[in-house]
């Protein structure tokens, strides 16, 4: 096994997260899932508005949701890191994990770009939504879907045996 992975895995923090307490791994992954739903779902809802659904929503006012969604992202960056500390070998030896990380970067970059596009054209109600905004919204929607697929597949593609750690799930 990789010495760095082994070192992380044998740390007190890593062992605690993998431990028996319901307050450890189960709670952390639950918070990770709640914030995933809020961020991916909320960002997708804004994308759907840009693509023409619920046209009565003043687009620039959706900016009011962004702080909530950015907090959800911050929480997931932290909980995701903690989950990684619990099972570094399991995650870092799985190619799907790197696909997921790349998709996080892409989806969050698009989320930022969509927000910027809305902020830069506050009078969008008087004009039509730009083609660029629609492309960004469509790409954002697609990347959230791809990200959730990759995240879920992580659970089915790793090899527990190589760790000797009993599966929690």
């Amino acid at each position, binding site marked *: 096994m990789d010495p760095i992975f082994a070192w992380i895995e044998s740390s007190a923090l890593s062992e605690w997260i993998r431990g028996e307490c*319901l307050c450890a791994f*189960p709670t952390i*992954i*639950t918070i990770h*899932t*709640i914030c*995933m*739903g*809020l961020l*991916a*779902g*909320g*960002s*997708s*809802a804004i994308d*759907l*508005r840009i693509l023409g*659904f*619920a*046209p*009565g*929503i*003043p687009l*620039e*006012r*959706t*900016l*009011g*949701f962004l702080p*909530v969604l950015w907090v959800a992202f911050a929480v997931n960056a932290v909980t995701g890191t903690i989950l990684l500390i619990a099972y570094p070998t399991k995650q870092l030896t799985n190619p799907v994990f790197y696909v997921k990380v790349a998709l996080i970067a892409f989806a969050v970059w698009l989320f930022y770009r969509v927000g910027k596009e809305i902020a830069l054209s506050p009078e969008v109600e008087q004009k039509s939504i730009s083609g660029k905004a629609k492309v960004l919204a469509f790409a954002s929607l697609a990347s*959230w*879907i791809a990200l*959730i*697929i990759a*995240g*879920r*597949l992580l*659970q*089915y593609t790793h090899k527990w045996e190589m760790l000797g750690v009993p599966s*929690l*799930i």
Partner: protein
Amino acid sequence: MEIAAWELWVRSTWLHKLVVQHEPWVWPACEIIHYLGLSLLLGTVGLFDLRVLGVAKGIPLRAIHRLIPWGIAGYILNILTGIVFFAGHPDQYFYNNAFRLKALFMGVAGANILAFYGTNVFAEMKKLPDNGIPSLQTKIIAGTSLSMWIAVLVCGRLLTFFRPPFFH
């Protein structure tokens, strides 16, 4: 432990056989759909609830309510995939306190939906001017909705940690 009659029936259905015969791809596929569905539900109904509770105040309630059909679509996806999970491993769910709590919270969420659309609360909300402040009832219903869907998610996520010690 003897297998109950209802469970024997579930295990005799074609759906149960389909799940257990093709579990390596049916289960992950349904899990993916279940997560997409929950994101759709939480992302649309959740944003509506947050708006009622005072976030993004400039959005007219009537307008953001138009996102609700997407949440219903997510809910339907999750009911369908939920049926697949239950048909595949009925004992894992039925004899599981996390699942029972999840069903209870879904019931409360359902009653809350009735309290919104089945009374005049929704009709009154639709009559509000664009910058109108929602009634206290509307806010209570939105708060209940948001907390119940999160509670349903929590119980669902914790299901596997409360599995019964036996598998038929």
